[in-house]
C-alpha cells in the first residue's frame, strides 16, 4: 500500500495539528500534579505498576512536570564546574557541626526551625513515637501548627525520656513508659502518596497504665486537599465506636484523640475519610490491636 503522505505533503502537518489540539484539551483537564517524591521515584525507576503508568500519562499531558523530569535527568549528569564550585573542607566541617546540633535538637528538644533566615521553611523535630504503621518513605518533617500539637510534642519529648529509661531496663520496644495523666500518642503514617493504603501488618499497641487519652496522628503529606475530613473507629466486630470530624493543619497533619475508656482492648479499625465535591473518599485505613496494660 503506498504511503499517502508521500503524495500529500499536508498530511503530517495535519496530524501535528490534531495532536496539538488533543494536547491542549488534555492539558486543560490536568488539575493535580505528582509529588516531588513520586516524580523523583519515577525518574529513578523506583515507581512501578499503576502508579508509574499514571505518572507517565500525566507527563504526556503536563508541560511543567515534564520539564521538571527532564531537568532532573540533566541534574544527574556531573558538570565540569562542579569541582570548582564545590564546598571547601572548612564549609563541610561547619555544615557537619550544624547538622549535629540540629539532629540533637530534633531528638531531644521541642521543634526548632532549621534556619532563622527562612522561617517559612522551618522544619520540626520528629516527635518520638510509640508506634509507626507502614511508613513507605521518610515523611516530610513538618512544624506543628496547632497549639495542642505543640503541647503534645513537648509531652512526647518527656515520654521519650521515660521510654529511653524503659528501654534500657529491657522494656518492650514499642511501648511508652507509663506517665500517668499523659496522653498516649502514636503516629499513623501514610503507606503511599496520593492514595493511602492500609498497613501491611497488624501491629499491637500496648498502652501503659494511666496514660490517657489516646492520640493518633497522621501526616497526609502532599495528599491533595479535601473540603472536610473525618475519622471512623470500629471495633473488630465492625461496630462503630467513634466518628469525629478532623481539621488538617497547614503542615498537612490531622490528629484525633479518644478517651481511654472509649476503646476496648482488641482489634480496631481506623479509617480516615475526606469529602470533595460532595463525595466521600476513603483516604486511609489501618487495622491494629490495642492492649491496655494495668
Amino acid at each position: 500500500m503506498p504511503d499517502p503522505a508521500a503524495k500529500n505533503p499536508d498530511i503530517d502537518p495535519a496530524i501535528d495539528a490534531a495532536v496539538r489540539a488533543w494536547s491542549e484539551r488534555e492539558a486543560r483537564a490536568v488539575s493535580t500534579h505528582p509529588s516531588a517524591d513520586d516524580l523523583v521515584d519515577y525518574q529513578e525507576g523506583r515507581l512501578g505498576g499503576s502508579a508509574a503508568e499514571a505518572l507517565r500519562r500525566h507527563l504526556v499531558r503536563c508541560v511543567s512536570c515534564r520539564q521538571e523530569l527532564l531537568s532532573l535527568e540533566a541534574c544527574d549528569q556531573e558538570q565540569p564546574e562542579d569541582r570548582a564550585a564545590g564546598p571547601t573542607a572548612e564549609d563541610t566541617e561547619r555544615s557537619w557541626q550544624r547538622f549535629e546540633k540540629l539532629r540533637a535538637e530534633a531528638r531531644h528538644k521541642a521543634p526548632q526551625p532549621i534556619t532563622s533566615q527562612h522561617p517559612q521553611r522551618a522544619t520540626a523535630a520528629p516527635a518520638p513515637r510509640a508506634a509507626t504503621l507502614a511508613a513507605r518513605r521518610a515523611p516530610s518533617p513538618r512544624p506543628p501548627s496547632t497549639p495542642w500539637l505543640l503541647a503534645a510534642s513537648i509531652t512526647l519529648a518527656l515520654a521519650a525520656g521515660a521510654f529511653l529509661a524503659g528501654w534500657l531496663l529491657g522494656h518492650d520496644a514499642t511501648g511508652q513508659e507509663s506517665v500517668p495523666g499523659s496522653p498516649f500518642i502514636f503516629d499513623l503514617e501514610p503507606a503511599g502518596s496520593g492514595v493511602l493504603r492500609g498497613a501491611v501488618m497488624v501491629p499491637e499497641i500496648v498502652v501503659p497504665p494511666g496514660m490517657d487519652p489516646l492520640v493518633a496522628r497522621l501526616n497526609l503529606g502532599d495528599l491533595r486537599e479535601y473540603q472536610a475530613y473525618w475519622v471512623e473507629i470500629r471495633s473488630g466486630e465492625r461496630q462503630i465506636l467513634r466518628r469525629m470530624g478532623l481539621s488538617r493543619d497547614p503542615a498537612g497533619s490531622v490528629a484525633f484523640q479518644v478517651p481511654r475508656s472509649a476503646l476496648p482492648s482488641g482489634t480496631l479499625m481506623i479509617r480516615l475519610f475526606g469529602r470533595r465535591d460532595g463525595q466521600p473518599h476513603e483516604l486511609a485505613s489501618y487495622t491494629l490491636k490495642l492492649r491496655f496494660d494495668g
Partner: protein
Amino acid sequence: MPAPGGARTCPSCGVENVSGRVRTIITRHGVGTGYEISTEHYRRLRPKLYALIRRMGVGGQEIEDVIQETFLHVQRGLDQGAFDERSSLDTWIVSIGKKRALKHRRRLAAAKRRGIERSLDAAASSDAPLLASITDPRPGPEQRVADRQILRLFARGLEALPETFRQPLVLQVAGLSYQEIGSVLGISEGLVTSRVHQARAKLRRLAPRPPRGSPN
C-alpha cells in the same frame, strides 16, 4: 540482646543494629534510632549533594539549607526504619536530596510557575486557528471544509491509537527529542523512533486518497 526483627549492621557506623517490632529500630545509638549518619559519611556525601542541589537551580545559602534538610530527613527516616536496603545508603540519601531540592525549587518557583501556568492556560484556551498550520494563508471555503474533515479524522484516529503509540507522538509534536521522549516514557530511543513512525503511519492511512489526476 535478641533481634526480633533480625540483626543488621549500620552501613554508616558499622554498629550492629537490632530491628524491633512495628518497624521501630533500636540500636546502641539510642531508642528509636536506626542507622546513624557518621562524620565520615557526611563528609563524603556532602560535596556530592552540594553539586546536585546546585545543578537543580538552588543557589547561595539555600544549598546549605537543603543539605541540612536532607540529612535531617535522612536521619529521621533511618530512625524510623524507612531505609529498606534495596539500594545503597548513599543512593538513598542522594535520592532524598534530590526530592528535597525539587520541593525547595517548587516552593520558590510557585509564584512564577503560577504565572507560567496562567499563560499556558491562556494559550490553550485561545482560539488559535488549527487549520492555519495546514492550509495556505488564504484557503478557499472548500479547502477549509476539507481540512476540518481531515482534522476530525485524525482526532478520532488519535483517540483510537493505543497509548504506547500516542504518547511518543504527542511528545514529539510537543518538541521533545527522541532521547527526551525516551526519558519521559522510560523507554529506549530506538523504541521511541519506531513507535512515532508507526503512530504516524497508522494516522496517515486514515487520510483520504487524493483524487486521480490531481497534480500531487
